[in-house]
C-alpha cells in the first residue's frame, strides 16, 4: 500500500487511530485502553509509513511482519488493520462480542492481518525471531517488528529471545518497547523495577535507540536507523505515556483495563478533534 512520510498527516492519522480505539472500547465495555493509546503513534508510524504490506494480500510473502507481543493492545492493532483496509471498519464495533473475529486478544486464525495469536505476555519476540530467521533463509529483506510492553519484559522468555536474536545476528528484527511505566498493579518501578532498560537491551547485544514514543519524527527516524544497523538486532525504547491523547486518562494506572464511559468518550473525542481543528 502507498505509505506516507508526511509527519503532519501521520500525526492526524494517529489521532484518528486513537478516536477509533476509544469508540470501539466504549462499545465493547471492556478492554485495555491505556496501553492501546500509549503505543498509538508507534503503530501508526509502522502501518501507515514504514511497513511494506498489502491489505489485499495479507499473506504476501515479501511483506514486513508486525507481532503484537503485548496482545492486550488488540484494539490498536484492529484499528490499524481496519484503517489500512484489511477489513471493513464497521467490524470494529464487534470487538469482544460472540462470533466476532475481533477477540479480546488477537487471534490469527480468525482475522486476516493478525500474524500470530498473542495475549499471554512474553511470547511475541521468540515468534518474531523465528520469522526473522525464516525470512533470512529465503533471502527476503522483509523486516519483523515486535511491540512489547515494558511490564511485559518482566517475563523471562523475553530475555531468552533477546539472547537468541543477538546470537543469530537477526538484523532484520526490530523490537519496540512501549515504555509507559505502568502495569496493572501500579508503577513498574514499584511492582518489579525495570531500569536500566536501555542498559539491559544493550547488554544482550542489541543496538538500542532511546526516544520519545509520541514524537512522530523521532519514531520514524528510529525506525529508519534500525534498518541501517547490520549484524545485530535493534531495540527502540519508546518513552510513552499510558492513556496518551486523552488528558484525563494520561498516566493513570486505573485505565489499564478500564474502558471509557459514553460521557468520557464524548469528552475524549472532543479533545482529539480540538487538536485537529487547532
Amino acid at each position, binding site marked *: 500500500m502507498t505509505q506516507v512520510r508526511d509527519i503532519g498527516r501521520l500525526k492526524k492519522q494517529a489521532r484518528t487511530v486513537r478516536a477509533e480505539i476509544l469508540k470501539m472500547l466504549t462499545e465493547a465495555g471492556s478492554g485495555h485502553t491505556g496501553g492501546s493509546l500509549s503505543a498509538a503513534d508507534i503503530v501508526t508510524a509502522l502501518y501507515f509509513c514504514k511497513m511494506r504490506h498489502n491489505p489485499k494480500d495479507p499473506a504476501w510473502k515479501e511483506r514486513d511482519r508486525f507481532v503484537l507481543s503485548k496482545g492486550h493492545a488488540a484494539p490498536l492493532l484492529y484499528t490499524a488493520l481496519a484503517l489500512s483496509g484489511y477489513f471493513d471498519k464497521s467490524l470494529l464495533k464487534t470487538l469482544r462480542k460472540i462470533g466476532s473475529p475481533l477477540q479480546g486478544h488477537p487471534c490469527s486464525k480468525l482475522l486476516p492481518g493478525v500474524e500470530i495469536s498473542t495475549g499471554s505476555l512474553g511470547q511475541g519476540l521468540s515468534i518474531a525471531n523465528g520469522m526473522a530467521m525464516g525470512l533470512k533463509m*529465503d533471502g527476503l529483506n522483509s523486516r519483523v517488528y515486535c511491540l512489547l510492553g515494558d511490564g511485559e519484559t518482566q517475563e523471562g522468555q523475553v530475555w*531468552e529471545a533477546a539472547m537468541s536474536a543477538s546470537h543469530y545476528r537477526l538484523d532484520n528484527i526490530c523490537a519496540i518497547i512501549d515504555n509507559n511505566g505502568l502495569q496493572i498493579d501500579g508503577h513498574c518501578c514499584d511492582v518489579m523495577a525495570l531500569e536500566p532498560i536501555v542498559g539491559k537491551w544493550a547488554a544482550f547485544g542489541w543496538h538500542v535507540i532511546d526516544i520519545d514514543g509520541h514524537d512522530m519524527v523521532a519514531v520514524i527516524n528510529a525506525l529508519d536507523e534500525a534498518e541501517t544497523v547490520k549484524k545485530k538486532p535493534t531495540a527502540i525504547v519508546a518513552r510513552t505515556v499510558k492513556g496518551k491523547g486523552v488528558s484525563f486518562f494520561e498516566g493513570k494506572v486505573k485505565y489499564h483495563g478500564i474502558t471509557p464511559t459514553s460521557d468520557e468518550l464524548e469528552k475524549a473525542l472532543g479533545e482529539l478533534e480540538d487538536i485537529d481543528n487547532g
Partner: protein
Amino acid sequence: MGERAESTGGKNIATRDAYGEALLELGKKRNDVVVLDADLSGSTKTGAFAKAFPGRFYNMGISEQDLIGTAGGLSLTGKLPFASTFAVFETGRAWEQIRQTIAYSHLNVKLVATHSGITVAEDGASHQAIEDIALMRVLPNMTVIVPSDGIETKQVIAAIADYCGPVYVRLGRSKVPVVMPEDYKFSIGKAHTYHTGKDANIIAAGIMVDVALKAMGILKNEGVDAGVINMSTIKPLDNDAVLRAAKASGLIVTAEEHSIIGGLGGAVCEFLSENYPVPVKKIGIKDTFGCSGPSDELMKLYGLTADNIVKTIKEALKK
C-alpha cells in the same frame, strides 16, 4: 496377525535413534525442514541433522520457551520446524507456549520429544516425563503420537511431515525391540490390532506394546484369549478399534509408560464410558513420581511388566 520384524532379524533400536535417522532422510528430501533443539542435540539425536544441514538447524540453548516460540515463527514463514528436547522440558517448561502459540494458532510445528517415561532411568524423577501425554492431549488442535519401535518412529516422522498442524511425538531413550510387522504402514489415528481376544484386550502404546505382546503369549499358554492393540496415535484416538475390542471381550486393559491419569488409559476410559461401558484396568504409573534406577528394575517397581498385566487380567476375569 503379521510376523514381527524381529523374527526376521530386526535389531533393537531406540526410538530417538530412529528419529535422528528419519530427520536426516527428511532433510534430504525437503528443503523446508528446519530443526531446533535446546542444548540436547546429542541426546535427542537431532545432531546428525545439524551436521548435515547446519543452515537449517538452530540450537536455542537451554531455553525451551524460546525454542517453541521460535519454531512457531519459522512455521509462519512456511518452514516445517521440528522442535526437540526432553519430554519433561518440552511439554512442561514450555506448555503455555505450546498452548498459546502452537495449538491455538494451529501452527505447523512438530514437537518431537525424547527421554519420556521412567526408562530415562538413573537421572530420576526430575527427568522422567510421566504426564506429557496428558499435557499435550488436553490441548485442542493437538495430535499426540507414541511410536512403539524404531520402524514405527520412522514412519511416524514421514507421516507427520505430510500433515499440516501441530503434532506431539513421544520418544524414548532406551533401545527397544521391534514390535511392528514387516508389512505395517502407519497412518495418523489408525491403531494396529495384532489380535482381538475373546477374554480380554490390551490397548498399549510405546514400549508397553512389546510388554503387552509378551503378556498375550503367556496368557495364551494358560488358555486365556487376550488381544493386543498398538494405539500409537493417542489423539485422535482410534475409537473404532477400541469399540471392536470392547465388544469382543468385555474387558479392556490399557498399558502405558505414563501416569494412569490423563494418558492412554484416560483417553480409552473417556471414550468407553460414554459409548460402550466395560470394565477397564489401567497399567501405568499410579499417580506417583518415578525414581532413579536401572530401566528394567524400574519397570518392575512400577508394575510395567508382562507378569503384572497377566495377573491383572486373570484377577479381573475371576470377578
